[in-house]
């Protein structure tokens, strides 16, 4: 199909514009500047072919219903189709009149069923695709299969698609992964299945629990009944056991009751009342008698005593005198001690006076008292003394120390040498170090040079066919590797052809043998009749018939030679008749055999024919072989001549290739050896120069020069050591000079300080002399001495104060003693004049006597008062006792009447009988009540009769037996009820829960998703695999012819920078695409620029398009500005390629680059170029 015309009737920015593409051959360039509608026209072309999409942005000038694109197409057979496309839902294609509906199928037929996407993919190429294709080539490392596949499909990213499938498959499942979707679902399935197993309740388990429960419940019921029966029995026995002792006590009580039945029942309190009355009566009689006696005694006592009243009146004064006596006595005792203390103090004071430097009396001593000011002044001065003296001494010492240091520094400087300049030496050392490790480099180079020299010798000795020197070898004119490859190829082709000829000949001769064998075998089974034989015999028979006729018509004699010959031939000795018949028969016989043995005949004929054929072919093969041998020889000769210049008799190309690579290696070694030698020379020179420089420097520094044989690195090291030493000396000298300077600057300050200290000390001495003069000391006195004098004066004054105080106290004591003695005398004269005499002797005794008399008088007065009170109370008691006696006698008489007794003495017996009757009756009543309770509803007499059947021991035994069996039953019941509880619990857990079933539902859901994901995985995995296989197949099928065509195109596109493209194997054995330089050198895609890769893609794309067009009608190729990144020369080359391609199929190039149009017009012949401007 060709596009002759594109009519932009109403579309995008266009109205009624028409693009004419000539007759549809040659390159059409549609040029539009930016915004001129290049993209719109490109879109219009596509929409014309495949309809305007539902949503389009090309309606900004013309509304949807007015959009129109027209076109004129021409099919391969020359028929034309003109139509108009409008935007609508149906019938969008119309005829040129824009009225008549045009059948879409006509257009589809032109398009040969290719849909829009495929069209864009295969017959459209734009810049983006070119870039993607170029990138994919780099990223894929030049994988030939991928590149071809991508370029063939026009989709550029085939690798990405394959990887996407693999990634998607991996996300679903990895054999060893567990994070993939399938792995996770599988482990979830395991978990759910475990849950199912755990929540299922096996039927056997349920049946077991159910049976056990029923058994336990039956047993429990039985035990309950048994327990009830036994408990009733035990209860009855218990009651009988309790009743038995009651009956034992009941009988004697009833007999005792008979004795006391007549006794009068007295009130409970009767006996107590009776005892109280008797006791009270006798005690009243005793009280009356005792009171009488007491009254008599008291009255006697009172009469015997009298009390002194005057003494008692002065009781207070006497008590006071008694108290004061104590104070008086104490003062008398203290007085002598106080006098002694006073005298001692005075003596001590006198001693202190003598101690003072100026002898003083006690009376003068008071004047020695120091004022506070004087005392403080002396203390302050004393405190300053030591500091001032120390200060003066230390400042002197400092000054001396300074002078000593200054001297030392000057001394050191004198001993050091003068400073020396190091800069030159340092610079030279640095330079030496900058060169690096020259020694090692030198020895390395030396070693490598030696190694290369040896290696060259060895390799040279190993190189066959050559006997010259290494240097000659380098210039030896050997053929290039390509030439060797070429010869290997052609020679092996020639060998191959020769071998093929031989094989053919072998085949033919074998075939011939086989055929011959078959023929022989056929013939061995009997002569095969042939058509020729039949023909001969028939001719003979006919001749015989002629003879017969002639003889019969007598034209011929029967003895004619012809006749006899005939007869001889067929029936020797017979006649003509017989001979003719024989000839007839033998003709028939042969005819019959031919018919009968037709197969064998045919077989023989075929075998014979085949044999001839084979012979013929064998001959041809022989000829071919001879020719091939000749060609081979000629080639061999050419091969030999290639090497004649090198004067080498070559072996096979394969061997010579390895020889050549060996020779190349030697050449390489020779060149490296030369380089190394030069390097060595350079190093030696460098080292010597450095050594000279160093020696110069050392000389300048007055150091010995270095030894010639010393290694450079060691020389550098020792130079560095020397430099370091000199640097240290310089530094020390500088340091000492600075130190001396500093010390000298400090000296004036120290001097001033010493002077100040001396002055301050002198001033202090003046003040001190003045202050201590008060103490009678001179300036020489030390502060310690001054302090001692002050202390002595203080102690002296203290002693004088003490003696004055004691004097006062002694006076007071004497005065108090006189006063006391006067008051005692007055008191005695008033109350006891009889004691007056004794007073003169002792005040103490008089006071004691007075006190004694007073205490006796008080005592007597107290006794009299007490006796009078006692007398009064005894009289009252005697009267009360008399009243009580009367009252109790009446009470006793009443009681006797109550107990029906004659006398008071009969009362106790009556009381005892009454009490016995009461006790027995009450006890009997208690027993009967208890029995009545135990009878528990049975009549009392009946119960007693029943109980009397038992004896106590038997009842106890029966009860113990019952208790034991009750205990056992209770225990069993307990066990059963626990077991029942457990079983019920178990069974209630089996409550028809749907948990297991629900888990099963979950498991099914999981299985469904695992299945879905597994299938998805299979699809993705297979897709990746199949795609990889298809890529490989496509490579195999299209590699040869396509690659050689692409190689040409690539060479053109790269302006001969590459001579072509070639398939090659990389390290992994993968077939990759490599570029070939004109010298035969190959370049991996990794080493190519992006632009070059784009050109590879373009070359392959066009080569594949060309190859896909073989035998098919061409289709217009739409090219959208792919050349924007090409320089002018390459653009011209690309245009040429496109132009060449446009000879077979229409090419429409859309561009908005004016320069491209210019280049096209300059480069391409006018006849094959249509420039269309928008």
């Amino acid at each position, binding site marked *: 199909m060709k596009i002759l015309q594109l009519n932009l009737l109403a579309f995008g920015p266009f109205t009624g514009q028409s693009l004419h593409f000539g007759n549809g051959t040659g390159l059409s360039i549609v040029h539009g500047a930016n915004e001129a509608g290049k993209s719109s026209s490109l879109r219009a072309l596509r929409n014309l072919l495949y309809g305007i999409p539902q949503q389009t942005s090309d309606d900004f000038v013309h509304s949807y219903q007015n959009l129109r694109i027209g076109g004129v197409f021409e099919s391969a057979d020359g028929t034309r189709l003109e139509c108009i496309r409008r935007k609508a839902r149906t019938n969008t294609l119309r005829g040129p009149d824009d009225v008549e509906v045009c059948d879409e199928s006509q257009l589809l037929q032109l398009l040969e069923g290719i849909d829009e996407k495929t069209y864009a993919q295969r017959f459209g190429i734009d810049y983006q695709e070119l870039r993607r294709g170029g990138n994919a080539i780099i990223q894929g490392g030049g994988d030939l299969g991928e590149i071809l596949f991508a370029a063939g499909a026009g989709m550029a990213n085939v690798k990405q698609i394959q990887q996407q499938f693999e990634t998607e498959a991996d996300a679903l499942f990895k054999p060893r992964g567990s994070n993939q979707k399938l792995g996770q679902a599988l482990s979830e399935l395991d978990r759910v299945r475990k849950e199912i197993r755990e929540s299922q309740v096996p039927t056997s388990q349920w049946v077991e629990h159910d049976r056990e429960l029923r058994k336990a419940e039956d047993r429990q019921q039985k035990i309950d009944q048994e327990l009830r029966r036994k408990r009733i029995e035990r209860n009855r026995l218990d009651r009988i056991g309790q009743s038995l002792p009651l009956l034992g006590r009941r009988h004697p009580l009833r007999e005792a009751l008979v004795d006391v039945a007549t006794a009068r029942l007295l009130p409970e309190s009767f006996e107590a009342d009776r005892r109280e009355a008797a006791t009270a009566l006798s005690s009243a009689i005793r009280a009356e008698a005792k009171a009488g006696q007491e009254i008599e005694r008291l009255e006697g006592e009172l009469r015997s005593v009298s009390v002194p009243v005057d003494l008692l009146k002065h009781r207070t004064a006497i008590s006071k005198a008694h108290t004061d006596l104590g104070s008086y006595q104490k003062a008398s005792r203290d007085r002598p001690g106080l006098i002694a203390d006073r005298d001692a103090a005075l003596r001590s004071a006198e001693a202190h006076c003598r101690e003072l430097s100026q002898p003083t009396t006690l009376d003068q001593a008071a004047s020695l008292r120091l004022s506070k000011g004087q005392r403080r002044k002396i203390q302050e001065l004393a405190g300053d003394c030591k500091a001032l003296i120390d200060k003066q001494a230390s400042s002197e010492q400092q000054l001396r120390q300074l002078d000593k240091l200054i001297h030392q520094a000057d001394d050191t400087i004198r001993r050091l040498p003068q400073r020396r300049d190091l800069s030159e030496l340092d610079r030279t050392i640095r330079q030496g170090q900058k060169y690096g490790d020259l020694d090692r480099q030198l020895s390395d180079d030396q070693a490598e040079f030696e190694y290369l020299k040896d290696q060259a010798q060895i390799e040279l000795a190993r190189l066959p066919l050559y006997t010259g020197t290494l240097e000659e070898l380098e210039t030896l004119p050997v053929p290039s590797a390509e030439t060797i490859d070429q010869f290997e190829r052609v020679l092996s082709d020639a060998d191959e052809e020769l071998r093929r000829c031989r094989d053919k000949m072998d085949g033919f001769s074998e075939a011939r043998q086989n055929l011959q064998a078959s023929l022989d075998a056929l013939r061995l089974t009997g002569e095969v009749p042939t058509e020729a034989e039949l023909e001969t015999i028939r001719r003979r028979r006919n001749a015989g018939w002629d003879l017969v006729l002639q003889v019969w018509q007598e034209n011929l004699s029967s003895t004619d030679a012809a006749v006899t010959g005939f007869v001889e031939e067929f029936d020797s000795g017979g006649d003509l008749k017989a001979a003719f018949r024989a000839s007839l028969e033998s003709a028939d016989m042969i005819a019959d055999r031919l018919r009968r043995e037709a197969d064998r005949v045919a077989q023989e004929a075929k075998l014979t024919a085949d044999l001839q054929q084979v012979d013929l072919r064998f001959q041809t093969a022989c000829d071919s072989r001879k020719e091939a041998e000749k060609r081979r020889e000629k080639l061999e000769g050419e091969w030999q001549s290639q090497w004649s210049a090198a004067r080498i008799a070559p072996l096979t190309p394969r061997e010579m290739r390895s020889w050549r690579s060996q020779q190349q290696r030697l050449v390489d070694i020779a060149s490296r050896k030369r380089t190394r030698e030069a390097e060595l020379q350079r190093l030696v020179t460098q080292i010597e120069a450095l050594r000279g420089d160093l020696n110069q420097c050392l000389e300048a520094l007055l150091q010995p020069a270095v030894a010639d044989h010393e290694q450079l690195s060691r020389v550098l090291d020792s130079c560095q050591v020397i430099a370091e030493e000199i640097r240290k000396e310089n530094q020390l000298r500088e340091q000492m000079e600075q130190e001396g300077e500093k010390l000298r600057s400090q000296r004036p300050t120290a001097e001033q300080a010493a002077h100040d200290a001396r002055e301050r000390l002198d001033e202090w001495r003046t003040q001190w002399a003045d202050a201590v003069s008060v103490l009678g000391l001179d300036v020489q006195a030390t502060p310690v001495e001054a302090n001692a004098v002050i202390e002595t004066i203080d102690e002296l004054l203290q002693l004088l104060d003490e003696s004055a105080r004691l004097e006062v106290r002694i006076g007071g004591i004497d005065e108090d003693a006189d006063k006391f003695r006067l008051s005692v005398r007055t008191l005695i004269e008033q109350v006891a004049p009889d004691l007056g005499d004794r007073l003169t002797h002792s005040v103490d005794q008089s006071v004691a006597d007075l006190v004694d008399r007073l205490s006796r008088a008080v005592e007597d007065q107290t006794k009299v008062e007490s006796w009078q009170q006692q007398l009064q109370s005894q009289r009252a008691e005697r009267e009360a006792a008399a009243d009580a006696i009367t009252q109790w006698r009446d009470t006793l008489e009443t009681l006797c009447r109550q107990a029906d007794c004659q006398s008071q003495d009969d009362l106790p017996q009556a009381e005892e009988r009454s009490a016995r009757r009461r006790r027995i009756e009450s006890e009997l009543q208690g027993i009967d009540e208890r029995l009545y309770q135990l009878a528990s509803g049975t009549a009392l007499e009946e119960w007693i009769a029943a109980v009397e059947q038992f004896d106590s021991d038997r009842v106890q035994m029966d009860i113990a037996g019952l208790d034991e069996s009750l205990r056992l039953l209770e225990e069993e019941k307990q066990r059963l009820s626990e077991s029942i509880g457990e079983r019920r619990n178990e069974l209630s857990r089996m409550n028809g829960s749907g948990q297991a079933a629900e888990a099963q539902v979950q498991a099914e859901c999981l299985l469904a998703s695992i299945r879905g994901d597994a299938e998805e995985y299979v699809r993705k995995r297979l897709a990746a695999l199949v795609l990889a296989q298809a890529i490989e197949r*496509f490579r195999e099928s299209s590699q040869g012819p396509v690659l050689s065509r692409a190689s040409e195109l690539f060479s053109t596109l790269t302006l001969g920078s590459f001579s072509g493209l070639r398939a090659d194997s990389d390290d992994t054995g993968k077939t990759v695409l490599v570029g070939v330089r004109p010298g035969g050198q190959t370049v991996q895609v990794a080493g190519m620029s992006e632009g070059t890769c784009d050109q590879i893609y373009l070359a392959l794309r066009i080569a594949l398009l060309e190859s896909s067009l073989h035998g098919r009608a061409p289709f217009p190729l739409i090219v959208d500005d792919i050349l924007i990144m090409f320089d002018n020369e390459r653009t011209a080359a690309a245009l040429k390629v496109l132009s060449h391609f446009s000879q077979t199929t229409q090419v429409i190039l859309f561009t908005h680059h004016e320069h491209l149009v210019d280049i096209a017009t300059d480069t391409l012949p006018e006849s094959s170029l249509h420039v269309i401007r928008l």
Partner: protein
Amino acid sequence: MLRFIHAADIHLDSPLKGLEKYEGAPVDEIRGATRKALDNLVDLAIERQVDFVLIAGDLYDGNWKDHNTGLFFVSRMHRLRDEGIPVVLISGNHDAANRMTRSLRLPDNVELLPHTEAGTASMARLAELGVAIHGRSFANPAEFDNLAQGYVRKKSGFFNIGMLHTSLDGADGHEPYAPCSLDDLRQKEYDYWALGHVHVRQIRCDEPPVVFPGNLQGRHIRETGAKGCYFVSVDAQHHCTLEFVPLDVFRWEICRLDATEARRPESLIDQFSTELTRLTKMHDGLPLGVRVEVTGATAIHEILRSDSIRWLNEFRNVTLAQQNQRAWIEKVRWNTTSRRERGDSSDLSGPLAVLSGHLEELRSDPSRLMELAGVLETLKRKLPDELVNGDDALKFDDPEQLCRWLDEVEPLLLGHMREGVDG
């Protein structure tokens, strides 16, 4: 007038199969579906005050080992007992395989007919109603004898019912247990034959009625449509009137879509939406398990098949957009074909033609198919047994299965290749 319910194949606690969970799927609706269906049966019996209930075998799945299932059944039978409704059971092949059947303590309103020989239900209430129910339980999981022959003679004056778990003269997808012919049954001159075993509801004979009520709840996509029981009314002349009452709580349906005319995938989705609405209405809003089958030689074949997961999700979205969100997409079967014939690469050329040709070659060469199977071996080893063995398994070694996968791979690859153009 006599009224009773005839049900069979309850398959209690049998799980619903083939439903892959996804966000928004009506998970709660399938939980305990068979139990809910049994509850519906009991409710129906009580609501309609039936005289008795017949269950013609297969109460549970044969390989299901949870006694809770039996206990649940018993608890529901107790409900009928409280209402005074007798139940007559026979055990089917599944029950015979399950130990639970004979260990259950059924309440006294439930009678399981004997498995040693054919018998007649002995509950007094049935005699009062004038009904004689004959039948025989399966003794073994597989009964290949004609059990019907041993059934007792009809009891005259009574309404005679025969209960039998059978496939009659054979039914698709069902084991040929207790085989017998319709004539065998007619000869007994019973008034009603209550059959079980075949899960598809069918009335095999009108006079007397020979009835398969089908199972109570569909469990997978091969059990489509409404499932339930027959409610039977008998008049004085022993003439039966049958009414089918659906009892299921989740229903299975196949939704067939023809993509032949579809120009865009979206129109297919719209088509599905319309169809789903129709199905939902048809099944009274019950939750549905829907299998979508897309057929037709269509222009969008490659678009659909190159990203089938995406379109599956689109279908799911349609169900989620439904008001009650009660449909579950079980699976989408893509049976579309390209407009062009398989192997015809006329509109393909270059690599795509090679790819297509290569696939065609793989499909026709069993030994190369097996090579492909080798790649899938690691996956196969990891998959659970159900997915590798059995009727419904993924058959990795089956050339047909592998071909089907390749059929799916082709549009996937071509679709991606062609997508690559604009991307």
